[in-house]
């Protein structure tokens, strides 16, 4: 379908169906049935198989007309795309629609206190008892778990296999008595994450994604989707200007909840966008040393944008295969964030100590300085990204492993 045809068909469909006073969930069900909730998805999964160019038109039309689209905020996108890639027909049918309509919020249950960088070292245990998976263990860094309905979970189902082979991937209902969620406060004062304790929690047999032992392979898909997000930044925002209609109220409420854990995410990216303004406001723009550092920062930011575009072009030209380019982008985001924090510090001088509402940019600069350390840790540390880049992109030889053989014999925390 040509971009013009896409525009025409979508516009006509919206003219016939869009009503800003419909209840949010009802509207999104219509959107799903019309095939416009996730047009880039395959036709058998509510989509139209659109490519990047066609999707650009869809997004343009939505934003021109101020249409509320499918729910995207938060970790639900990770769940959706992973289910799309690895789920069976029944799972796609049961899980994808409520994700798109926003009825179900999701969280990611991967990291554990004892396995951070080494995700495959997870020791949360899942045992099949009387046709149900019984889960015991602790997860950590679970964004939005406090208001999530479901979780994507990696747990160990076989302790005698090597560590990557003994993991399985589950879709777990969090609204059950065996699951306890506790918030985790960070050094920047926010509490975006949680700890999740599972004590004899249950997962139905049909809620295993893929087959037993396939957990690591599937987790890799999720992680690579996540990394691309780091390089790209988050995308769902509420419409800029206030619009008439009850649906916008509902949508704003949904976003407020879903986006709350991410309110500091722009700050962890270093806020390079504020640098020029701050330099002008403070007069630091006249300091040649600051200027050099600003120029470096601006070059990096521009380069990262351009490099991401060519990486996207490569993906488009090739296949949907997940490429480690995400690791390069993520590493780049860390470098930029650190440089930006460095420049902000130079610009602010002693004022960088102040964090109140009357401080620089209403405290945003202060928050930036204590949020930046997170970007080179979350979603795989810089060190892990460099291992991935050197081994998978550059083909450098792997380091000798100390963690082969049955998992139960491996040294762990």
């Amino acid at each position, binding site marked *: 379908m040509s971009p013009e045809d896409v525009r025409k068909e979508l516009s006509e469909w919206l003219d016939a169906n869009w009503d800003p006073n419909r209840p949010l969930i009802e509207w999104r069900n219509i959107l799903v049935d019309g095939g416009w909730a996730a047009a880039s998805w395959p036709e058998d999964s509510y989509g139209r198989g659109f490519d990047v160019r066609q999707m650009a038109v869809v997004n343009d039309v939505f934003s021109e007309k101020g249409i509320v689209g499918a729910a995207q905020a938060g970790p639900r996108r990770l769940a959706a795309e992973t289910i799309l890639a690895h789920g069976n027909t029944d799972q796609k049918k049961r899980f994808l629609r409520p994700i798109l309509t926003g009825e179900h919020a999701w969280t990611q249950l991967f990291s554990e206190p004892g396995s951070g960088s080494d995700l495959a070292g997870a020791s949360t245990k899942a045992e099949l008892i009387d046709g149900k998976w019984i889960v015991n263990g602790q997860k950590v860094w679970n964004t939005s778990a406090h208001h999530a309905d479901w979780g994507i979970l990696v747990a160990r189902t076989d302790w005698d296999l090597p560590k990557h082979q003994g993991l399985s991937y589950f879709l777990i209902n969090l609204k059950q008595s065996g699951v306890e969620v506790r918030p985790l406060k960070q050094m920047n004062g926010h509490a975006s994450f949680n700890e999740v304790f599972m004590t004899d929690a249950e997962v139905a047999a049909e809620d295993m994604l893929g087959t037993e032992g396939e957990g690591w392979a599937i987790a890799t898909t999720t992680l690579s989707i996540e990394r691309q997000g780091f390089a790209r930044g988050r995308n769902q925002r509420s419409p800029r200007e206030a619009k008439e209609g009850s649906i916008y109220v509902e949508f704003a409420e949904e976003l407020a909840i879903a986006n709350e854990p991410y309110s500091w995410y722009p700050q962890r990216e270093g806020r390079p966008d504020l640098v020029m303004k701050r330099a002008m406001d403070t007069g630091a*723009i006249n300091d040649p040393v600051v*200027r050099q550092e600003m*120029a470096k920062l*601006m070059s990096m930011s521009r*380069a990262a944008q351009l490099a991401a*575009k060519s990486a996207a072009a490569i993906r488009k030209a090739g296949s949907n295969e997940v490429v480690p380019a995400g690791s390069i982008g993520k590493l*780049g985001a860390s470098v930029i964030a650190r440089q930006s924090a460095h420049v902000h510090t130079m610009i602010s001088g002693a004022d960088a100590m102040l964090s109140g509402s009357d401080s620089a940019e209403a405290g945003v600069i202060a928050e930036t300085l204590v949020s930046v350390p997170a970007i080179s840790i979350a979603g795989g540390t810089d060190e892990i990204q460099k*291992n991935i880049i050197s081994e998978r992109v550059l083909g450098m030889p792997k*380091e000798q492993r100390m963690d082969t053989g049955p998992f139960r014999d491996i040294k762990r925390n």
Partner: protein
Amino acid sequence: MTEYTQDQETFRDVVARFLQAKSTPADVRRLMDTDEGFDRAVWQQLCREVGLAGTHIPEEYGGFGFGPVELGIAAEEMGRYLYCSPFLSSSVMAGYAILNGASEANRQKLLPEIASGSTIATLVLDSVNAPEQVGRQLRATGNELDGAAPIVTDAHVADLLIVVAEGKEGLDLFSIASDADGVAIHAQDALDTTRKLSRVVLSGAVADKIGHLSEAGLEKTWNQISVALAHEMIGGAQQLFDSTLEYTKVRVQFGRPIGSFQALKHRCADLLLALEWAKAVTHHAAFCLCAGEEPETASMAKAMASDVYMEAARAAVQLRGGIGFTWEEDTHLWYKRAKASEVFMGSPHMHRERLLSQIEEAS
């Protein structure tokens, strides 16, 4: 946004194949020890068969009519193979100066010879540090030129000098034969012997005034040269990176390839990131020259390419260990070019300052 067309990729292959055969490290070593510093026969062949000297010169002046993108492709391959030739001096520097500053009649007269490679020209600037310093030493009184340019590339082999000198109303552009009276060319020995440098002294030399170079014209010329040079530099950086990576995969110490050590892996990953960034910006800068947009990307490209070339060169020596430090190993040829290119046409510091001023003005 940088995507090469099929034709452009084919052009790259043609240039690369030619240079791979004609500019081996052995060729480079042979030529760098000669006074001329390049192989006339090979240069002529490249001009005749590939038309390289006229890559970016419009068809009406006898060139190929390609733009900065194709020029960048050619320069990138030349940097990769460290091709010794007057290409940068004659086609890029003199060519662009004439295009930007000479009158129509003089373009008609001078460019076809440069585009065909039958004349070797070079651009005489009295400062290769920063555009605003140009014109402080070379003065024009009518058609008479006086003063010195301390660093001029390939002047020792040039037939024609294109001189930028300060006249009554700003910078004027002159052409003068290299063997004319009042022209003295002193070869300078320099760190990088694959690109020869001279000091050009003009004493009452009578030249042809071929046009005027406005401030904007000089800035544009400087940008065009910087972008071509940045391409050459990322080509060189890529070559160093590729060969170093290969070395870390085959060199065995402590019973394993040294590339399996995390210290080396992480250094290579960091370098890849820097290289990808510099490439993205440099390629984009060529597209911007075509479209007449974002002039600040030229300085961005030159600064980033300089930094990554030096970084790649440092790593290339360090990761090879002692062998990387020997004359016999080829790494130092690129290492020296990296340094020489870094300080030619403006240091990274100068370009970053220039970049910020441009962004400031735009905002």
